[in-house]
Structures are given as structure tokens and as C-alpha cells.
């Protein structure tokens, strides 16, 4: 039971990769769900996600 639950968990490395990919493509429903699950319990990745969004805004500002 626990093992099955753990099998569904994403690790931070995979989360960072998917957060970047989400800027380029629509994630699958399953990926999106697992991403949200992870972010709901991981402060580090939530912070990383906010920093990625900031990076995008900063690049737009840099070029205008």
C-alpha cells in the first residue's frame, strides 16, 4: 500500500524538469496531477516554481 503510494510520488528533480516543460507544452493529466500533489507538500519546489515564473517576467523586461 505504502509502496504503491510512494511509486506515484515525483522527486524534486523530476518536478523541476516538468515545471520547465510546462512552459513549452501541456503536461498530461497524470503529470499535472502528480505535479500538484508534490507542490502541495514541498516548499522547496513551490519556491522554485515561483522563481521560474519570475525568470520569465525578468527576461521579458530585460528585452523591452
Amino acid at each position, binding site marked *: 500500500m505504502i509502496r504503491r503510494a510512494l511509486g506515484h510520488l515525483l*522527486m*524534486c*528533480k*523530476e518536478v*523541476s*524538469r516538468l515545471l*520547465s*516543460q510546462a*512552459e*513549452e*507544452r501541456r503536461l498530461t493529466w497524470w503529470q499535472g496531477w502528480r505535479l500538484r500533489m508534490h507542490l502541495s507538500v514541498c516548499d*522547496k519546489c513551490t*519556491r*522554485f516554481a515561483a*522563481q*521560474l515564473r*519570475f*525568470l*520569465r*517576467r*525578468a*527576461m*521579458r*523586461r*530585460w*528585452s*523591452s
Partner: protein
Amino acid sequence: MATDFAREIEVHRGYLLRIAHLQLRDRDLAEDVVQDTLVAALGGSGFAGKSSLKTWLTGILKHKIVDAIRRKQREPAAVASFGDLEAELDIEDFDALFKANGAWESPPADWGDPEAALGRREFFDVMDFCLEKLPPNTARVFMMREVMELESDEICTELAITANNLWVILYRARMALRECLEQNWFADKGRSR
């Protein structure tokens, strides 16, 4: 009147060159592209004044850069320059950021209020520094996406790379930039707060 406008435009030459050079990594080509941009700005459809002059010029420059990249891609000799992309794809420099089990090795730091940085000239100098540090092709692809705002499939078509390669390159660019900004800007800010 016309000469006043020419002078106003000329003020932005340095800035345009900086973008073109970061994008093309070729000083002569960057000069050419900026020259084309200024000529087009002087003789073209005219500045409507709805955006700032700098934004308008940047818009023209983006088109000129895309044209230059397209031309470069068509030259047989230039294919080699993007051949390096393969080499850049092989760099596995992110393992250090994560533990073997996929957890953060050094988690992202608290950036405080990053929005405040957007109003600071010095922040964008650090940004330039960090962009310069990226491998050339990685920087080029990242700029096509984030500065010139091309769609992913356009970039893949232009550079003849797969979507998967594009994701890897953009991921790498974002990770490297994030870390560079943290070390060279936000770390200091954190200490001074």
C-alpha cells in the same frame, strides 16, 4: 526633423547591439543586424508612438535576428555551428543540484521580494553576465524562446532539433540562470536584509 529622429534612434544602438550579440555571438553579424534595424526604423512604416521607441526598435530587431538565423541555417558551413548543440546536450551538469534520490542537494534560497529587482539597472547587468556564461547555443535557444518569444515548434523547425532536445536545452538554461542570479544577486540581497 528627420535628423532628430535619427539621433533619438542612434541612442539605442548600444542596447540593440548587446541583444544581437548575445543572440548571435558573432560581432560582425550583430553589427549588420543592428544596422539593418536602424535603417528599417528610419525608412520604414513609422513609429506610431504607442510603445516606447526602445520597445519598437527591439521589435524590429527581433525580426532581423530571426532572419539572420534562418539565413545562417541555410548556409552549409553554418550547420557546424549548431552541430555544437549536440555537445551541449551531453553536458550533465545538474546532477550536482540533486541528490541521487532526486531530492534537492542545495534547495532554492529565499529571494525575498524579487519584483524589486526588476526596477534596478544593476540587476539587469547581472542578468547579462549570467546569460553570457551560458553555453552559446543554449543561450541562443533560450533567447529565441524567452526574448523573441518564438513558439516551441517554430524553434524546432528553424534549428532542426526535436522537441525533446528543446526541452532539455531550455531546462538547462533556466536552471543555470536561476542559480547564477541567486549567487550573484539574491544571495547578497538576502545578507543585506
